[in-house]
């Protein structure tokens, strides 16, 4: 991991509440990050918001790294005020990534929602580049939240209210694909309830699934022990350490569906 101060190339609103930030970060990009990895941005100059903010890498070109972010609270609001030419302090690349194990039969199914969309979109681009057939399902509550246009018939958008694409959540779409396609591998990133449902289906249908999860991170680099999630099958012992819990920032953020327990 590298701590680098990057010059902002552009910071543009690309949809309602969604912004794309391009930062020149030659050293971090030289590490050739993978989809699923993230960076930690130092956004607030004052100490009102003392902690960095984790953001998935949405891709890179030459020496420029991209982030796609949604405005939530104060830090992301401050982020929208940064302009080309400003510098921003970034630590990365952090965490593990989606493993694209080469096999000749199973079809990747990529699923994303909310702030989980950027890394999955990047993975989608990678698979396109590799000319590997795959499905991409993106869920949202309503039309306004969608900011991509499907590039082929295997990209499926859903909205809870039916205002765009298929009405409902991503789950029925996933189920249908699993039952129509022989052998799938799932790659998902999004809100916890979505990941939980995907986990359930993946385990029930025995489809391998990699889930990228979020947790509250104070440091993002393994120092604070704050970002834990429970393992799914652990040997309960009287005294243990890192048997029951794993660190999302360092052991994740990508976990196999069988590894973790959302409850």
């Amino acid at each position, binding site marked *: 991991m590298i701590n680098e101060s990057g010059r902002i190339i552009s910071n543009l609103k690309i949809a309602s509440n969604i912004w794309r930030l391009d930062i020149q970060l030659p050293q971090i990009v030289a590490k050739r990050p993978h989809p699923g990895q993230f960076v930690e941005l130092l956004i607030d100059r004052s100490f009102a918001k003392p902690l960095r903010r984790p953001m998935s890498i949405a891709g890179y070109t030459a020496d420029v790294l991209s982030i796609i972010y949604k405005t939530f609270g104060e830090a992301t609001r401050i982020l929208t005020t940064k302009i080309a030419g400003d510098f921003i302090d970034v630590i990365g690349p952090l965490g593990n990534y989606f493993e694209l194990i080469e096999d000749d039969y199973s079809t990747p199914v990529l699923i994303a929602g909310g702030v989980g969309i950027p890394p999955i979109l990047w993975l989608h681009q990678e698979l396109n580049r590799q000319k590997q057939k795959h499905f991409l399902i993106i869920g949202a509550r309503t039309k306004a939240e969608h900011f991509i246009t499907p590039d082929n018939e295997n990209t499926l958008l859903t909205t809870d209210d039916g205002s765009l694409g298929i009405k409902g959540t991503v789950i029925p779409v996933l189920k249908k694909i699993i039952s129509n396609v022989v052998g799938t591998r799932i790659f998902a990133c999004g809100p916890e309830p979505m990941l939980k449902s995907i986990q359930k289906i993946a385990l029930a249908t025995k489809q391998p699934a990699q889930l990228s999860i979020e947790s509250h991170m*104070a440091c993002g680099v*393994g120092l604070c022990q*704050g*970002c834990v999630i429970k393992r799914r099958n652990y040997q309960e012992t009287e005294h243990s*350490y*890192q048997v*029951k*819990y794993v660190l999302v920032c360092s052991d994740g953020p990508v976990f196999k569906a069988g590894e973790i327990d959302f409850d």
Partner: protein
Amino acid sequence: MTNLTIKIGQTVFKNPVFVASGTFGYGTEINDLTDISALGAIITKSITLHPREGNPPPRTIETLGGMINSIGLANMGVDNYIRDMLPLYHQFPTKIIVNIAGSTMEEYLQVLKKFESVSSNITGYEINISCPNVKEGGMAFGVNADFTARLTEQLRSLTQRLLIVKLSPNVTDITQIGKAAQRAGADAVSAINTLVGMSIDSTTRKSNIYTTYGGLSGPAIKPVALACVHKLFLKLKIPVIGIGGITNVSDAIEFALAGAVAFQVGTANFRDPDIGRKIVYELDDYCTQNNLKYSDLKGQVIRYQ
């Protein structure tokens, strides 16, 4: 950088900039992002007799100017630590102070005994009698002067190494606890550990911390820490190590003026793991420009009354 050396008990440190327990791992995780050899000392996260998983998540939340944590003393336990970590500290570029926590007096003693029974080059111990995040986490000691004295006395009898007692601000009078530690033979006290705090998400109505209460740290608590350090400085003869919200060289000077012989950087490491090293360099510049040693500033705050 000779103007930065300081002495606690018989131990000389190359500078007064330490990193606080629980905010820098074991000192071995973060080489990529800083040069630990610049630091005066690293305080390890709290080590207990048995390994501990710590509390369920959520364990941290940001607050205005700070954060709340309830890690629950997650750590590998003393035996694993001695086996896996101590060898790494062989010829380590900075001093290691082992922070010890326990749920009974016996546990503290056993952990310390185990350390003393092996050969190692650790510099000393910081005794965490003040963790607010586990029911058995020492708070019972930290708020009671008698307990503190008895525990310190026993520990003292077991080691010649530097013995620092880390104090809680969640008490009516921190100097009473500090005096008890001094009486019982501590070489120094460090202050402060976190303040008990709570955070609620007004939208989901959920507690932001699994254990409901956690420990508040960061710049928000700096004024409380400065007051504790200054009171301890006035009442104790042994040195005080300042902790609480330190993020830059100016904070470092304020803590010295309040009476600290050295200080620890905690939460600020999460924002910038290199902050300790930066403070060392800025402090050195400051001392050179002002033609003084860091220790000259100790307790030199100009008061009106």
